[in-house]
């Protein structure tokens, strides 16, 4: 798998992983804040679920920019390792959670044989990451002990969050980055270049 990647693509993946590792850590606080804010309404369990999609975003951004097999998975794992290096309290177990989420995001790209990177595939990728990570948390965090209606409701919220915060926001950020021209050496930048040329001709 790593044979197909160029060194600069791997370093890019690492940089994205590191940057989003920090953002992921910061969003634990955001999630906690939302959770406290929702307590009076009895909706505390949804605190983290609303923003859960943000934890898949690096998979979508990295895969959308580099467009190679394994990128979504690896970028997410790197973000997880960064969080551990920075001293997250979730511990090395977080690398496992990251691997599960990355595998979920990778699944969608694998289904298109890593050829299709339209918005709908990115959204689908965010949703599949949400679904797979939800199954993992049922087990790992002990959510399975909760009542069925709550499990279903949190699942729906997480899938929507994955579609919007990971899929749509991830594509938007990548497109904005491509516009600055720094991605000229990568698949997304090249595609943009090609589109411009055919548009001008």
């Amino acid at each position: 798998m790593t044979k197909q990647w160029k060194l600069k693509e791997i370093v890019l993946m690492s940089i994205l992983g590191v940057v989003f590792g920090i953002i992921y850590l910061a969003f634990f606080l955001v999630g906690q804040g939302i959770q406290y804010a929702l307590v009076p309404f009895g909706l505390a369990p949804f605190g983290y679920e609303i923003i859960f999609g943000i934890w898949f975003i690096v998979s979508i951004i990295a895969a959308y920019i580099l467009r190679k097999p394994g990128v979504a998975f690896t970028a997410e794992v790197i973000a997880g390792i960064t969080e551990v290096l920075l001293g997250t309290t979730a511990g090395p177990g977080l690398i496992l959670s990251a691997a599960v989420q990355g595998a979920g995001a990778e699944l969608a790209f694998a289904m298109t044989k890593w050829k299709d990177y339209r918005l709908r595939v990115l959204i689908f990728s965010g949703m599949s990451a949400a679904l797979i990570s939800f199954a993992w948390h049922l087990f790992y965090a002990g959510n399975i002990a909760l009542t069925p209606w709550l499990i279903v409701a949190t699942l729906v919220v997480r899938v929507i969050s994955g579609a919007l915060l990971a899929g749509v926001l991830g594509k938007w950020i990548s497109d904005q980055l491509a516009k600055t021209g720094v991605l000229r050496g990568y698949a997304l930048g090249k595609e943009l270049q090609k589109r411009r040329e055919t548009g001008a001709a």
Partner: protein
Amino acid sequence: MISSINPSIKAIAVLIPGILLSFTFDVFTPLSYFVFILIVTFTIGGISILKWLKIFSPFVFVALSFGWMAILYTNQSFSNGEVIVTLWSLEITSGSMLTGISLALRSLCFVALSLLFALTTDSTKFMLSLMQQCKVPPVITYGILAGYRFLPLFQQELQILRQAHHIRGVGRTKGLKGKLNQFRRYAIPLLANGIRKAERVAIAMESKGFTGDTDRTHYHQMTIEKKDWIFFSFIVGIFFLIVALSYSLGYLNIFGKQF
């Protein structure tokens, strides 16, 4: 001292009890393991109590709120037993109470285990050990280390961006659209600069002869010694001992099934 244990072995030793704890839903098992980790942390861990408390104490609230949530919304197979309290229309049974306490204790165990790892591990050594013991490709580990090194630079860059905006009179904006615009004004240049740096670092690495070949020598040789295995069997072994004890006392509960 735990800081001299091989980081990969330490990570796995912390991981296994963490995963296995996810099966238990009784109070005794996580509680006794939590006490055990505390003892390890403050004796052979060599971590100062004050420093540990500073990081740990916020998570007591997190664990409490998670446990409270689990008490309120336990599913049928866990909420057996007598009704203890009735809150508005909610009935809290002894079963759901115990499940909630168990889940809270479990998350405290996770936090204590991770602190045991995080506070005694050097991040560079952890990466080197991942490369040498777990066979993670050198391109990835050195890539991560390079990215990790950029963290302080990002901070500096954010400050420069802020000053640049300030000097040009771009102030705070109001409203949702303004906020979104402001987010874009900071996030995109930061990321773009990061990507430029990534490209330069990659070129520098390659020009200095870094091929990413797994067949290479290391300046810092990470090894696994006898004491690493002793530590590993100690942390994992005590967990199984506690499970056995809790089984023989009749406390053990796995996924709502009492043994």
